């Protein structure tokens, strides 16, 4: 018993010491140049870049709370996105919570919010006079990747259908931008679009130059640059976007094949839609029809064998179950024949 007590006390002291040590451990400090256009963190320099369409593939080190608010539009007969709420909690990412300002910066700046990950940092500088300065910064060793992704016009864009894996179509910028243009309200055609993107060589940086929009069985391309879209959320806040009809036959054919493959594969279910429905009906009929029916029959038979008191109870049970089966039959008729 004594030994056991010693072990417990030692474990407690150890865990306490480790807790205090980790709390007291020095956190990396973020500093900026006077104009905030360069950030220093973890022995890396981060430079200000226009990161429209860029995304890093580092798994998030902070929690992102994101919600979309839809409202029902009776004219369209569907829900439409009216606003997107984004909340980042940079205190969830202790690495980004520890910044240091110069004496000159302290005079004008009240707080700084830094979001992002090890490659891309999003910085909001809040000034004491109420002003705000937002900038996007990229880690120095990814600047070459950034330049090559942004400038290489002949680069193969990938148009991605998310399932099955590797179901994408290659196309060049020219192939996507040559057709005639058209303007639409993006909220009216909210759902039918796919991402167009290029990955850096190591796969850590992704550039999304635009989207593939499917409208009336025709493929269109939406360029982020042309529409001055900074991210996907902006798209649905815009009144109009310019679409380029994709006329290149090779691309159109490849897109049709990819689309067929995407829908035929049934989002990765192990069985196809019809089989899924059949299995579902069998399961439901067993749970709500066969099992209660069996118990109903047994209680009904027992009701005849048993004495008065039990008879009433057993009749009541079988009546409830019979009623349940009838309601379930109505349910199945309502769902099955529509």
């Amino acid at each position, binding site marked *: 018993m004594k030994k056991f007590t010693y072990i417990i006390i030692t474990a407690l002291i150890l865990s306490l010491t480790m807790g205090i040590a980790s709390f007291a451990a020095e956190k990396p400090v973020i500093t900026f140049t006077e104009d905030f256009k360069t950030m220093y963190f973890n022995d890396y320099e981060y430079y200000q870049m226009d990161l429209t369409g860029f995304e890093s593939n580092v798994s998030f080190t902070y929690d992102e709370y994101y919600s979309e608010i839809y409202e029902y539009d009776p004219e369209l007969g569907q829900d439409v996105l009216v606003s997107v709420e984004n909340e980042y909690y940079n205190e969830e990412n202790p690495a980004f919570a520890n910044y240091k300002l110069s004496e000159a910066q302290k005079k004008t700046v009240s707080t700084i919010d830094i979001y992002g990950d090890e490659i891309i940092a999003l910085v909001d500088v809040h000034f004491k006079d109420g002003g705000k300065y937002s900038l996007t910064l990229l880690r120095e060793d990814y600047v070459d990747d950034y330049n090559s992704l942004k400038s290489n016009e002949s680069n193969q864009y990938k148009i991605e259908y998310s399932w099955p894996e590797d179901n994408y179509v290659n196309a060049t910028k020219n192939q996507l931008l040559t057709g005639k243009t058209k303007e639409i309200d993006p909220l009216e055609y909210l759902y039918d679009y796919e991402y167009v993107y290029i990955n850096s060589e190591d796969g850590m940086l992704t550039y999304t130059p635009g989207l593939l929009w499917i409208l009336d069985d025709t493929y269109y391309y939406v360029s982020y640059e042309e529409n001055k879209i900074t991210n996907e959320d902006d798209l649905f806040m815009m009144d109009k976007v310019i679409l380029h009809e994709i006329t290149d036959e090779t691309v159109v054919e490849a897109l049709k094949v990819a689309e067929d493959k995407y829908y035929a594969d049934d989002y990765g279910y192990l069985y196809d839609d019809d089989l*899924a*429905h059949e*299995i*579902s*009906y069998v*399961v*439901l009929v067993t*749970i*709500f029809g066969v099992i*209660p029916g069996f*118990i109903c029959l047994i*209680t009904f038979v027992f009701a005849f064998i048993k004495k008065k*008191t*039990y008879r009433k*109870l*057993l009749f*009541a*049970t079988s009546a*409830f*179950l019979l*009623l*349940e089966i009838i*309601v*379930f039959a*109505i*349910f199945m008729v*309502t*769902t099955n024949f*529509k």
Partner: protein
Amino acid sequence: MLKKLIKYDFKSVFKLWWIAAASTVALSVIGGLIASFFAADEFTEKVIPIPILIVAVIILTIVFIGFGAFGIFTDILVYVRYYKNLFTDEGYLTFTLPAKRKTILNSKILLSFVFGSLTGLVLTINTVNILLISCGKYIFTKEILEEIKYVIKEILAYEYSYYFAIYLIEFIVIGALLLLTSYLFTFGCITVASVIAKKAKILVAVGIYYGAVSILSSILSLFYLFGISSLYEVFWALDQSDVFICVALLLVIVALVLCATCCLLYYLLHWCLHKKLNLA
């Protein structure tokens, strides 16, 4: 005779229950006052120091544990009353009363249902209490009340709004049936244990209860695994108007299954008490 039995059962449980209920109401007032720190932190510019918030979290946790304990305490009171009154020495006296076994059983079931509902009511009042004391003044502003009015108007103007009233009724009925089923189920475990065991009846009852709950939860998880995904498949293809009626029908099915379960459990209880119980 039922009235007299209920009166004595009620008295026996109420003399301890009201103290616990009053204590939780007092706890809810303390909880409300403590939660007002968080409300001030959330709704106003005031910054509450972290040590105060930590103490507040600890006190609030104790308050909510108190609420949970109150629910368990009510159940224990009802089960103890059932066990002592029927299966201990007291049972000899109970069964010599000029009352049918069915009447005695009905009295216990009614007692459990009434106290279960009362406990639910007290806990709801306590929660409302906490909300009103802590953030009532922030929530019930003119603008927010207007907003609530607007939302209610919108709901009422909605084409299928009457379904919400139907769902509400169905949920209340299902809630009541669930409460009844759970009490009947536990009474069933106690009764079966008292019938089959000569010693350590409570231990056997607990064993039966956990055994039965494990089996039932395995069956329910199977239903969850296959049934819910099957329902999803069925509902996926429906029109909006049909979804409303199908949900209403589904809730009726659940209510009817619960009714049948209650009847079967009652049958089991009655049969055990009538045919199998031998206190001698």
